[in-house]
Structure formats: C-alpha cells, structure tokens
C-alpha cells in the first residue's frame, strides 16, 4: 500500500514504535553527557562563526562575527517594528495553515471515503501536487499585489497537499473489522466517521499538519522576500539591499528561531491530541 512509503516520514514516532517492538530488552542507558553535548555543539558552532571573520577567512563585511549578529538581534528585539513584522509573518502563516487544513480535512474525508472519487481524482492530484507553489508567485502578484492575500494564496496551495495526502492515507488505513463491527452495532455513517474513521486518520492528519506548518513558514517568508508582502522576509530583502549586513543575518537568525519554535509547538500539539495513541503512550509495549 502507498501509505507505507509515508511512514518513514513520521520520523521519530515510527522509530520509537519500531525499536520498542523489536528490542524492549535493552534498558535505555542514562547518559548525562548526552544532554550537555547538544549545547556544546551550538556553542562550538557560534565560536567557529565568530572566528571565521575574525581570523579573516571571510571578510567581516560579508559575514559579520556571531557576536555582532546576536547584538543586532537583541537590538531588533527592542524595536516595535521588528515585532510588527514578526506578527505579520505569523499571521500569514497561521491564516494560511488554517485555511489549508480545513480545506484538506473536508476534501480529504469526502474523497477518501469514496472509492470512486479516490480513483477518479488520483491522476489530477498526482499532477497538481508536484507543481511548485512558487510558480504561482507571478499570478499572485497580478491578482493581489503586495498584500497578505498573495502570501496566503501560496501558503494555502503548498500546505494543502501535505495535509490532504495524509488524510487520504489515514482514511484508507481504516480497519475493516472495526468498521464492520460498528456497522453491525447500528452506527450510522456520521457516527462511524466520528468514532472509527476520525481516530484512525488523526495520527496521519497530525503528521500532515506538522509538515504543513513547516512548509507554510517557508512559503510565508518566500512570499515576503520575493513579492514584498509585509513581514520578516521583506525586512531581510530590505536589510540586504540597504547594506545592513549584520541586521540581515540577525533577521535570518530570527526566522530560524521562529522555525524551531513552530516545530516544538507542533510536536507538543501532536503529543497532546494523540495522547491516547499507542505511539505516544510510552508505557504500552505494542
């Protein structure tokens, strides 16, 4: 089945599940050094970054030392304008993601639960999905100009497919025995969707939403960078063309931090909504 290809993308979850199933005998060794090594790595990276321009491998004009960039980032964090553009980026990200997720859930459950619709739409989906969303940039500019709608159009298009495909896989993954049991107990179509189909598809859905959240951020920044709709991306382009190099690096750093935060938030939400699922309930040995 096609869904199997997707499972590796579940990353962490499938791995934990797998290793627990195969070797529950090995107790996890407590290794306090492991916790220290990560921050040491980050420090090492910052130190290397600091040294490269200081020693003169790359001119400081093009790559300012880490301390300068961090100082610029701290300076930015005191400015209202910075937080306004962060807010604009996050607003586009959130609205786009929300619209994409709602559309994908509605269409995914509708198309996924009918074999006819699934086979009939398959070729169209396979054709539309790989079309890079940046191809729509010129169209977005023509239709909406440099406004948030342009960003939204790109974000919705790109993140829709991530969620939609996952929902299709999820709906297809439903256990026929459970479904027939529900049927014989007299559960109607709506009740079956609520109690059988939805719980089966939820882990797939959450994976899709997590992937889509990352994609939506990429597209939000891209739209701002290329089109010039308001947000962090536009600030980066402005800082670069205005010659504020440390400022540009600081803004890039800020987008990375936002990315990390969004990833953490999504993992957290996933864990909370799937707390009943065997991939999260660690005490259960599958």
């Amino acid at each position, binding site marked *: *089945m096609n869904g*199997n*290809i*997707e499972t*590796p*993308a579940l*990353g*962490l979850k499938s*791995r934990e599940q*797998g*290793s627990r199933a*195969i*070797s529950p005998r090995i107790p996890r060794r407590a290794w306090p*050094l492991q916790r220290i*090594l*990560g921050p*040491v*790595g*980050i420090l*090492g990276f910052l130190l290397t970054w600091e040294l490269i321009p200081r020693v003169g491998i*790359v001119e400081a004009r*093009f790559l300012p030392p880490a301390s300068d960039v961090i100082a610029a980032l701290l300076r930015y964090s005191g400015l209202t304008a910075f937080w306004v553009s962060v807010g604009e980026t996050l607003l586009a990200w959130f609205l786009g993601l929300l619209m994409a997720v709602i559309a994908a859930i509605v269409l995914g459950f509708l198309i996924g639960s009918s074999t006819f619709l699934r*086979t*009939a739409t398959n*070729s*169209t989906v*396979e*054709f539309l*999905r*790989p*079309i*890079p*969303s*940046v*191809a*729509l940039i*010129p*169209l977005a500019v*023509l*239709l909406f100009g440099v406004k948030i709608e342009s960003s939204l159009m790109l974000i919705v298009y790109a993140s829709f497919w991530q969620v939609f495909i996952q929902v299709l896989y999820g709906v297809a993954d439903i256990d026929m025995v459970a479904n027939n049991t529900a049927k014989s107990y007299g559960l109607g179509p709506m009740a079956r969707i609520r109690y059988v189909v939805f719980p089966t598809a939820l882990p797939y859905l959450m994976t899709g939403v997590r992937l889509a959240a*990352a994609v939506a951020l*990429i597209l939000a*920044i891209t739209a701002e*960078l*290329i089109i010039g709709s308001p947000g962090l*991306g536009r600030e*980066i382009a402005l800082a*670069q063309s205005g010659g504020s*190099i440390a400022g*540009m*690096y600081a*803004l*890039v750093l800020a*987008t*990375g*931090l*936002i*990315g*990390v935060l969004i*990833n953490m938030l999504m993992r957290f939400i996933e864990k909370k909504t799937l707390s009943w699922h065997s991939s999260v309930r660690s005490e259960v040995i599958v």
Partner: protein
Amino acid sequence: MNWAKSFGYVVGLPLLLVLIWWATTMGRPNFFFPAPALLMDTFGDVWFGERIITDVMPSLGRLLTGVIAAIGIGVTTGLLIGSVKWLRALLEPTLEFFRAVPPPVLVPVLMLLMGITDSMKVVVIISGCIWPVLLNTIEGVRAVDGVLSDSSRTYGIAGWARIRYLVLPSASPQIMAGIRQCLSIGLILMVISEMFASSSGLGFTIVQFQRSFAIPEMWSGIIVLGLIGVALSFIFQWTERRVLRWYHGQKEVENAG
C-alpha cells in the same frame, strides 16, 4: 474493459476540468485567465525554440547538480553522524536549527557571500536540500534493527561491508523519504534564486513576462514549471520503486501475516 475503465479514471477528471475551463473562457476573454487554445499556441511559440537552450536547460542543470550534490553530501555525512553516538549528540540541536531556517532566506545571504553567479545558485539549492536528506539519513541509521546489527557483528561483518549490506539498506526507506522532500525544495529554490537575482533561467523569464503583462506567456511558464515538477516526481517514484522493492515486498508479507 478493465483497461478502458482505468484509463477513463485517469483521464476523466482532467478532461472535465479542461472542458469547464474552456467553457468559462469562451464567452468573454478574461485578461488573467487565457483560453486553453490561446495558451497552447503561446506555449509552443515561447518554449519550443532557443529558449529551451538559453533558459530551461541551464536551470535544469543547476537543479540536478544541486540536488545530486545535496544527496551525496547528505547521505555520507548522515552515515557518519548517525553511526557515531557522541557526534550525533553534539551536532543534533545545531542541525535542527539549520533545518528550521526557511531555505529561501539563504538566497540573499549567499548572494552577498558569493555574488550573483551560477555556483551561488547551485550552493543555494544544496544548502536547502541537504537538511531533509541529512536528518533522515541520521534517523535511518539510528533505527537499524538491533537484532540484525548484533547478528552482523557476530558474523564479523564490519567496516564498509557493514555499511553496504546492513546500514544503507535498512536506512534506505528513510533516506528516500528525505530525498522526496529534497526534490520539491530544490525546485522551489531553483525558481527563487532566479527570480531574486539573475538575468536568465526559468524563474527570471516568468517574472519578466509577468512584469510586462504578457499573461499567456506567463501562464505557459507556470505550466513548464508544473511539467518539470511532475516529471521529477515520476522519475522519483520509479526510482523509489526500484530501490525499495525489497522493502515493499517485506511490508506486503507482514501485512498479509
């Protein structure tokens, strides 16, 4: 009969959509959405000529160079980082940060460091594509079955043979998942690096058309990008089926059991 039915399923909806498109653009010509016939005409005029050599080929060349380099570097470093425990612990948070940086913001940075050159565009593609491959390879190497790993150690399989016959195959499903993500990021970055700073290439040409309000030409460019995306995804699916044939076979057996 069966063949005709599945053919009907494949062609049915696209045909219907084109018909709707054709019908809606028939009455009054819409400035933004050209009729299919006009679009087909323009497509032929614009892209079958020297533009294929001056714009499409260089773009594709940069994309392929970047993606292949990213896969090569990603898989080798991933194997190294994945098999050395302390190295993994040391680098993982830093790598996670780099993955979280939206790749397009690297375009202005690399433009500054390298100038507007072809190699800058290739480096942009590599620097965006490498993360999914690298991190998925690390995950894959980490998830090698403990029993298999132990037995290969008992048989004295070590060094290169261990990587070739144990680590690479068992990490390959995850590596392929990473490569799939890397392809679409690569295409995005190819277009963006050309839209942002270039005087040739697909992305540049499409933006040029849009700025001069050559709408059918712009659409034909969008279609070229779409076709490239579709072609890439088919090539990938074909390769993936070959590379992971054993894996899908194994899954089928497991599901049947």
